[in-house]
Protein backbone atom coordinates (compact mmCIF):
# COMPACT_ATOMS: atom_id res chain seq x y z
CA UNK A 1 0.00 0.00 0.00
CA UNK A 2 2.95 2.33 0.62
CA UNK A 3 3.84 2.14 -3.07
CA UNK A 4 0.35 2.98 -4.26
CA UNK A 5 0.01 5.69 -1.62
CA UNK A 6 2.72 7.71 -3.40
CA UNK A 7 0.33 8.28 -6.30
CA UNK A 8 -2.19 11.09 -6.52
CA UNK A 9 -5.78 10.18 -5.71
CA UNK A 10 -6.67 10.08 -9.41
CA UNK A 11 -3.64 8.09 -10.56
CA UNK A 12 -3.05 4.36 -10.87
CA UNK A 13 -0.07 2.12 -11.49
CA UNK A 14 0.25 -0.94 -13.67
CA UNK A 15 0.67 -4.36 -12.09
CA UNK A 16 4.10 -4.96 -13.69
CA UNK A 17 5.36 -1.62 -12.39
CA UNK A 18 4.21 -2.35 -8.85
CA UNK A 19 5.74 -5.83 -9.10
CA UNK A 20 9.06 -4.33 -10.21
CA UNK A 21 9.06 -1.72 -7.46
CA UNK A 22 8.30 -4.28 -4.76
CA UNK A 23 10.56 -6.94 -6.27
CA UNK A 24 7.87 -9.59 -5.82
CA UNK A 25 6.73 -12.47 -7.94
CA UNK A 26 3.43 -12.03 -9.77
CA UNK A 27 1.80 -14.74 -7.67
CA UNK A 28 2.99 -13.25 -4.39
CA UNK A 29 1.79 -9.78 -5.37
CA UNK A 30 -1.57 -11.14 -6.56
CA UNK A 31 -2.07 -12.85 -3.20
CA UNK A 32 -1.46 -9.61 -1.32
CA UNK A 33 -3.64 -7.62 -3.70
CA UNK A 34 -6.53 -10.07 -3.36
CA UNK A 35 -6.58 -9.50 0.40
CA UNK A 36 -6.46 -5.73 -0.03
CA UNK A 37 -9.21 -5.86 -2.64
CA UNK A 38 -11.40 -7.97 -0.36
CA UNK A 39 -10.97 -5.28 2.28
CA UNK A 40 -11.88 -2.66 -0.37
CA UNK A 41 -8.52 -0.95 0.05
CA UNK A 42 -7.27 -1.45 -3.51
CA UNK A 43 -9.10 -1.32 -6.83
CA UNK A 44 -8.04 -3.09 -10.00
CA UNK A 45 -8.95 -1.86 -13.46
CA UNK A 46 -8.25 -3.91 -16.56
CA UNK A 47 -7.27 -1.90 -19.62
CA UNK A 48 -5.35 -2.32 -22.84
CA UNK A 49 -2.04 -0.81 -23.86
CA UNK A 50 -2.26 -1.31 -27.59
CA UNK A 51 -3.26 -4.93 -27.81
CA UNK A 52 -1.70 -5.95 -24.51
CA UNK A 53 -4.02 -6.27 -21.52
CA UNK A 54 -2.77 -4.35 -18.49
CA UNK A 55 -4.14 -4.20 -14.98
CA UNK A 56 -3.92 -0.86 -13.20
CA UNK A 57 -3.94 -0.68 -9.41
CA UNK A 58 -4.97 2.18 -7.17
CA UNK A 59 -5.83 2.78 -3.55
CA UNK A 60 -9.53 3.34 -2.92
CA UNK A 61 -10.59 6.28 -0.81
CA UNK A 62 -11.15 3.85 2.04
CA UNK A 63 -7.76 2.31 1.47
CA UNK A 64 -5.98 5.65 1.47
CA UNK A 65 -7.67 6.66 4.72
CA UNK A 66 -6.89 3.28 6.30
CA UNK A 67 -3.25 3.56 5.25
CA UNK A 68 -2.90 7.07 6.63
CA UNK A 69 -4.56 6.04 9.91
CA UNK A 70 -2.24 3.05 10.13
CA UNK A 71 0.85 5.18 9.56
CA UNK A 72 -0.34 7.67 12.18
CA UNK A 73 -0.87 4.84 14.65
CA UNK A 74 2.59 3.46 13.97
CA UNK A 75 4.20 6.84 14.49
CA UNK A 76 2.21 7.41 17.68
CA UNK A 77 3.22 4.00 18.95
CA UNK A 78 6.84 4.75 18.22
CA UNK A 79 6.70 8.08 19.98
CA UNK A 80 6.44 10.45 17.05
CA UNK A 81 9.19 8.91 14.84
CA UNK A 82 8.93 10.39 11.34
Amino acid at each position, binding site marked *: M*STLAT*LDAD*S*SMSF*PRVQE*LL*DMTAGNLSTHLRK*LEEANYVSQEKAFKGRTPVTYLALTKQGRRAFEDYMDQLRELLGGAS
Partner: protein
Amino acid sequence: MNVQTTTPEDAEGDMLDPAAALALSQAQTKRVALDESGPISLILASWAVAWGVGFLIVWAAAPGSPIPIPALFANVAFAVLTVAGIVISTIAGMKMNAGVRGSAAFSGTVYGLSWPLSMIGVFVIGTALLKAGLPPEAAWVYYPAMYGFVVGVLYIVGAAIWQEKSQLIIGIGMLVIACGASLLGYPMNLLAMSILAGGGMGVAAVIIGVLGARSKRATRG
Protein backbone atom coordinates in the same frame (compact mmCIF):
# COMPACT_ATOMS: atom_id res chain seq x y z
CA MET B 1 -4.98 -0.15 10.39
CA ASN B 2 -7.64 -2.61 11.44
CA VAL B 3 -7.19 -5.07 8.61
CA GLN B 4 -6.46 -8.52 9.92
CA THR B 5 -5.43 -9.92 6.57
CA THR B 6 -2.78 -7.40 5.59
CA THR B 7 -0.41 -7.04 8.52
CA PRO B 8 3.08 -6.33 7.17
CA GLU B 9 5.24 -9.42 7.09
CA ASP B 10 8.92 -10.03 6.51
CA ALA B 11 10.31 -12.35 3.87
CA GLU B 12 9.70 -15.41 6.07
CA GLY B 13 6.06 -14.46 6.59
CA ASP B 14 6.52 -13.46 10.22
CA MET B 15 4.69 -10.31 11.34
CA LEU B 16 6.84 -7.19 11.59
CA ASP B 17 7.05 -5.15 14.79
CA PRO B 18 5.86 -1.50 14.54
CA ALA B 19 9.34 -0.06 14.01
CA ALA B 20 10.11 -2.53 11.25
CA ALA B 21 6.70 -1.98 9.68
CA LEU B 22 7.25 1.80 9.63
CA ALA B 23 10.75 1.39 8.25
CA LEU B 24 9.49 -0.90 5.50
CA SER B 25 6.76 1.53 4.53
CA GLN B 26 9.22 4.42 4.41
CA ALA B 27 11.66 2.36 2.36
CA GLN B 28 8.94 1.46 -0.14
CA THR B 29 7.88 5.09 -0.42
CA LYS B 30 11.46 6.14 -0.99
CA ARG B 31 11.90 3.34 -3.51
CA VAL B 32 9.16 4.84 -5.70
CA ALA B 33 10.88 8.22 -5.66
CA LEU B 34 14.32 6.77 -6.28
CA ASP B 35 13.01 4.46 -9.01
CA GLU B 36 13.18 7.60 -11.08
CA SER B 37 16.91 7.62 -10.32
CA GLY B 38 17.75 5.40 -13.28
CA PRO B 39 16.31 7.71 -15.92
CA ILE B 40 17.48 10.83 -14.07
CA SER B 41 20.98 9.43 -13.81
CA LEU B 42 20.94 8.66 -17.53
CA ILE B 43 19.73 12.17 -18.38
CA LEU B 44 22.48 13.71 -16.26
CA ALA B 45 25.12 11.42 -17.74
CA SER B 46 24.06 12.25 -21.31
CA TRP B 47 24.37 15.99 -20.62
CA ALA B 48 27.61 15.46 -18.74
CA VAL B 49 29.10 13.94 -21.89
CA ALA B 50 27.42 16.40 -24.28
CA TRP B 51 28.63 19.43 -22.39
CA GLY B 52 31.84 18.09 -20.91
CA VAL B 53 33.08 17.01 -24.33
CA GLY B 54 31.14 19.44 -26.53
CA PHE B 55 32.14 22.66 -24.78
CA LEU B 56 35.72 21.45 -24.49
CA ILE B 57 35.92 20.84 -28.24
CA VAL B 58 34.43 24.24 -29.05
CA TRP B 59 36.83 25.91 -26.58
CA ALA B 60 39.71 24.10 -28.25
CA ALA B 61 38.61 25.50 -31.63
CA ALA B 62 38.64 29.10 -30.36
CA PRO B 63 41.42 31.45 -31.45
CA GLY B 64 44.50 31.17 -29.26
CA SER B 65 43.63 27.68 -28.07
CA PRO B 66 46.57 25.43 -27.12
CA ILE B 67 44.81 22.52 -28.88
CA PRO B 68 44.09 23.54 -32.50
CA ILE B 69 40.85 21.99 -33.73
CA PRO B 70 39.03 23.04 -36.92
CA ALA B 71 36.06 25.25 -36.11
CA LEU B 72 33.73 23.38 -38.49
CA PHE B 73 34.52 20.05 -36.80
CA ALA B 74 33.96 21.60 -33.37
CA ASN B 75 30.61 23.13 -34.34
CA VAL B 76 29.35 19.90 -35.90
CA ALA B 77 30.54 17.83 -32.93
CA PHE B 78 28.80 20.18 -30.50
CA ALA B 79 25.56 20.05 -32.51
CA VAL B 80 25.64 16.24 -32.67
CA LEU B 81 26.31 15.90 -28.93
CA THR B 82 23.52 18.38 -28.11
CA VAL B 83 21.03 16.52 -30.31
CA ALA B 84 22.06 13.23 -28.70
CA GLY B 85 21.54 14.78 -25.27
CA ILE B 86 18.06 15.98 -26.26
CA VAL B 87 17.07 12.57 -27.70
CA ILE B 88 18.35 10.63 -24.69
CA SER B 89 16.72 13.06 -22.24
CA THR B 90 13.40 12.83 -24.05
CA ILE B 91 13.37 9.03 -24.16
CA ALA B 92 14.55 8.67 -20.56
CA GLY B 93 12.02 11.27 -19.43
CA MET B 94 9.21 9.35 -21.09
CA LYS B 95 10.24 6.19 -19.24
CA MET B 96 9.98 7.94 -15.89
CA ASN B 97 6.24 7.59 -15.78
CA ALA B 98 5.98 4.21 -17.43
CA GLY B 99 3.11 2.21 -16.00
CA VAL B 100 1.39 5.17 -14.37
CA ARG B 101 -1.95 6.67 -15.38
CA GLY B 102 -3.70 9.81 -14.25
CA SER B 103 -2.48 13.27 -13.30
CA ALA B 104 0.98 11.95 -12.37
CA ALA B 105 1.45 10.61 -15.89
CA PHE B 106 0.28 13.91 -17.40
CA SER B 107 2.82 15.84 -15.31
CA GLY B 108 5.59 13.51 -16.37
CA THR B 109 4.71 13.67 -20.06
CA VAL B 110 4.46 17.45 -20.12
CA TYR B 111 7.71 17.78 -18.20
CA GLY B 112 9.43 15.34 -20.56
CA LEU B 113 8.29 17.35 -23.59
CA SER B 114 9.47 20.61 -22.07
CA TRP B 115 13.09 19.50 -22.47
CA PRO B 116 13.26 19.12 -26.27
CA LEU B 117 10.89 22.04 -26.82
CA SER B 118 12.96 24.45 -24.75
CA MET B 119 16.27 23.27 -26.24
CA ILE B 120 14.90 23.73 -29.75
CA GLY B 121 13.64 27.16 -28.72
CA VAL B 122 17.09 28.20 -27.52
CA PHE B 123 18.58 27.08 -30.83
CA VAL B 124 15.96 28.88 -32.95
CA ILE B 125 16.30 32.13 -31.00
CA GLY B 126 20.09 31.91 -31.30
CA THR B 127 19.74 31.43 -35.04
CA ALA B 128 17.51 34.49 -35.20
CA LEU B 129 20.07 36.50 -33.25
CA LEU B 130 22.85 35.45 -35.60
CA LYS B 131 20.68 36.42 -38.52
CA ALA B 132 20.14 39.81 -36.88
CA GLY B 133 23.89 40.38 -36.78
CA LEU B 134 25.02 38.83 -33.50
CA PRO B 135 28.79 38.24 -33.75
CA PRO B 136 29.94 34.58 -33.48
CA GLU B 137 31.87 35.33 -30.27
CA ALA B 138 28.69 36.67 -28.67
CA ALA B 139 26.72 33.68 -29.98
CA TRP B 140 29.13 31.39 -28.11
CA VAL B 141 28.28 33.28 -24.94
CA TYR B 142 24.54 33.07 -25.65
CA TYR B 143 24.27 29.35 -26.45
CA PRO B 144 26.07 27.86 -23.44
CA ALA B 145 24.49 30.37 -21.07
CA MET B 146 20.97 29.79 -22.33
CA TYR B 147 21.27 26.00 -22.51
CA GLY B 148 22.63 25.96 -18.97
CA PHE B 149 20.01 28.40 -17.77
CA VAL B 150 17.15 26.42 -19.31
CA VAL B 151 18.46 23.14 -17.89
CA GLY B 152 18.74 24.77 -14.47
CA VAL B 153 15.17 26.03 -14.61
CA LEU B 154 13.86 22.64 -15.80
CA TYR B 155 15.54 20.88 -12.89
CA ILE B 156 14.06 23.39 -10.45
CA VAL B 157 10.63 22.83 -11.96
CA GLY B 158 11.18 19.07 -11.66
CA ALA B 159 12.08 19.56 -8.01
CA ALA B 160 8.81 21.43 -7.49
CA ILE B 161 6.74 18.77 -9.26
CA TRP B 162 8.24 15.73 -7.54
CA GLN B 163 9.50 17.41 -4.38
CA GLU B 164 13.02 16.25 -5.05
CA LYS B 165 15.72 18.14 -3.20
CA SER B 166 18.46 16.62 -5.34
CA GLN B 167 16.94 18.16 -8.47
CA LEU B 168 16.65 21.51 -6.70
CA ILE B 169 20.36 21.44 -5.86
CA ILE B 170 21.26 20.50 -9.43
CA GLY B 171 19.00 23.20 -10.86
CA ILE B 172 20.32 25.99 -8.68
CA GLY B 173 23.89 24.84 -9.30
CA MET B 174 23.31 24.89 -13.05
CA LEU B 175 21.83 28.40 -12.92
CA VAL B 176 24.83 29.68 -10.98
CA ILE B 177 27.31 27.99 -13.35
CA ALA B 178 25.53 29.18 -16.51
CA CYS B 179 25.32 32.77 -15.32
CA GLY B 180 28.83 32.81 -13.83
CA ALA B 181 30.44 31.24 -16.89
CA SER B 182 28.77 33.76 -19.20
CA LEU B 183 30.43 36.58 -17.26
CA LEU B 184 33.83 35.14 -18.12
CA GLY B 185 33.21 35.91 -21.78
CA TYR B 186 34.28 33.93 -24.85
CA PRO B 187 36.16 31.53 -24.93
CA MET B 188 36.80 30.97 -21.19
CA ASN B 189 33.04 30.51 -20.62
CA LEU B 190 33.21 27.37 -22.77
CA LEU B 191 36.00 25.84 -20.69
CA ALA B 192 34.12 26.74 -17.50
CA MET B 193 30.93 25.12 -18.78
CA SER B 194 32.82 22.01 -19.85
CA ILE B 195 34.47 21.52 -16.47
CA LEU B 196 31.80 22.83 -14.10
CA ALA B 197 28.54 22.01 -15.88
CA GLY B 198 29.71 18.84 -17.60
CA GLY B 199 31.72 17.68 -14.62
CA GLY B 200 29.01 18.63 -12.14
CA MET B 201 26.38 16.69 -14.05
CA GLY B 202 28.67 13.69 -14.21
CA VAL B 203 29.11 13.72 -10.44
CA ALA B 204 25.36 14.14 -9.92
CA ALA B 205 24.68 11.21 -12.28
CA VAL B 206 26.94 8.94 -10.24
CA ILE B 207 25.51 10.04 -6.87
CA ILE B 208 21.90 9.65 -7.94
CA GLY B 209 22.64 6.30 -9.59
CA VAL B 210 24.32 4.99 -6.43
CA LEU B 211 21.50 6.25 -4.18
CA GLY B 212 18.93 4.57 -6.41
CA ALA B 213 20.80 1.27 -6.35
CA ARG B 214 21.07 1.39 -2.55
CA SER B 215 17.36 2.12 -2.23
CA LYS B 216 16.51 -0.88 -4.37
CA ARG B 217 18.64 -3.10 -2.16
CA ALA B 218 17.03 -1.67 0.99
CA THR B 219 13.51 -2.58 -0.10
CA ARG B 220 14.56 -6.10 -0.96
CA GLY B 221 15.48 -6.51 2.69
